[in-house]
């Protein structure tokens, strides 16, 4: 029962957001601020995550596929496809569920318990349009950018790891990567990143927006936003794979 109640509250928050998404003038300034916080500020961590994902994938694939019958290009194919289809979107999603999700939930939670949301509403603001819409929109708009950064860094990390460890020459790596490069994979990754961006920010907004009970309540809603964000990312990943692949 509680689940349905929560789902109903979540849906009505999203509906309010959707309905008020036309009030662009209300959230224009906030939108750019959020785009910077979600996108621009996340780039360094995503570069790091991407490079390490790619290089670890390469080293481990090289270790697992150590056989004379398997051409080295196979490693490139495995690494690049895994990164483009799965890892770039999911790992950056999980990392940002922590970074972005926690920040959004804390911000909104603090605003809720310190009556800032009430203050906004009592001034005649549409607090959903002012707070929730720009954050969710920023998630949706910036996650594909994050995906691109993670993919490129992942592949670069893969090539670099193969080269510096001497296990996979870059030419072989790229040959395999190109051989199994399907534009559909990239489209799939972009779709995923849209969905993940939406999930992380909307759940964090929901948890923060309805936070109760002072500082501890904010802490709880932040934790829940992070954990639920991760869970729903994995769930959505599964559903999308089942639906689209």
């Amino acid at each position, binding site marked *: 029962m509680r689940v349905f109640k929560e789902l109903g509250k979540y849906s009505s928050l999203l509906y309010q957001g959707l309905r008020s998404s036309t009030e662009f003038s209300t959230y224009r300034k906030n939108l750019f601020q959020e785009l910077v916080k979600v996108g621009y500020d996340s780039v360094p961590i995503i570069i790091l995550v991407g490079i390490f994902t790619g290089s670890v994938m390469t080293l481990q694939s090289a270790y697992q596929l150590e056989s004379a019958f398997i051409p080295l290009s196979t490693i490139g194919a495995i690494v690049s496809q895994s990164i483009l289809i799965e890892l770039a979107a999911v790992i950056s999603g999980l990392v940002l569920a922590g970074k972005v999700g926690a920040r959004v939930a804390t911000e909104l939670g603090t605003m809720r318990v*310190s*009556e800032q949301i*009430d203050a906004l*509403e009592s*001034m005649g*603001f549409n607090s959903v349009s002012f707070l929730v819409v720009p954050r969710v929109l920023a998630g949706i708009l910036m996650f594909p950018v994050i995906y691109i950064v993670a993919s490129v860094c992942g592949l670069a990390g893969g090539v670099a790891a193969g080269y510096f460890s001497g296990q996979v020459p870059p030419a072989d790596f790229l040959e395999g990567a190109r051989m199994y490069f399907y534009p559909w994979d990239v489209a799939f990754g972009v779709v995923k990143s849209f969905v993940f961006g939406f999930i992380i920010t909307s759940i964090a907004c929901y948890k923060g927006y309805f936070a109760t009970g002072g500082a501890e309540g904010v802490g709880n809603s932040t934790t829940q936003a992070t954990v639920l964000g991760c869970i729903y990312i994995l769930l959505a990943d599964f559903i999308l794979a089942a639906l689209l692949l």
Partner: protein
Amino acid sequence: MIEIKNLKKSFGDLLVWEGVSFTIEEGDITAIIGRSGCGKSVLLKHINALLTPDEGEIIIDEKNIFDLDYVDKRLLRQKFGVLFQGSALFDSINTFENVAFPLRYFTNQNEEEIHENVMRALRYVNLENAAQQETAELSGGMRKRVGLARAIILEPKYIMYDEPTSGLDPQTADEINGLILDMARQFDVTSIVVTHDMHSVLEVADKVAFLDQQKLSWFGTIDEMKQSNQKDLVNFITASEYQIKQ
């Protein structure tokens, strides 16, 4: 004029109050008093339609505010200035911007006009030197005053104060009380003060609404209150006076 008619509110199984009815006259300072947790702030949030009651209605300008659609509710709220208990300043922007905030979104004033208006409001609350300070650096009393400046910046018809003097030293509290009185007299705004500070009530209020035992226990003018022998009200006042004396 704000007519509150037979209001009932409960959160889940917890009844806050029922059958609350009274009228707030134009230009009056109405104090809503009662013990902590009796639902004073909840009542305040009904008056500008932030919360919706289970039953009853509030009539402002001959319209039940709970029948308004969301856009009209927001237009109504712009007639209210609210000073929140914790001031509810936006921590992401500085003092000046906090006060300028409603102006930027609800008026077409240019930067010069905004600056002029904000500085006038800050001067009024005696904080013009703190304009560029971050809100986190402000003391409790300063925060209240910034909150007040923000509440009056759009020149509202009604101002609601939620525990304006709580957590303040007596001197600062007196300053705030002075401001409340001055606002009401100088700009002829209708004021609603939620408080449990009897000192403040005696200082500023014209009328008093006493919430107790999940209902409106007593309503009348400040003079009537002084002579009232209603047991709960007398107990409440006595306890407060005892505290003041201490």
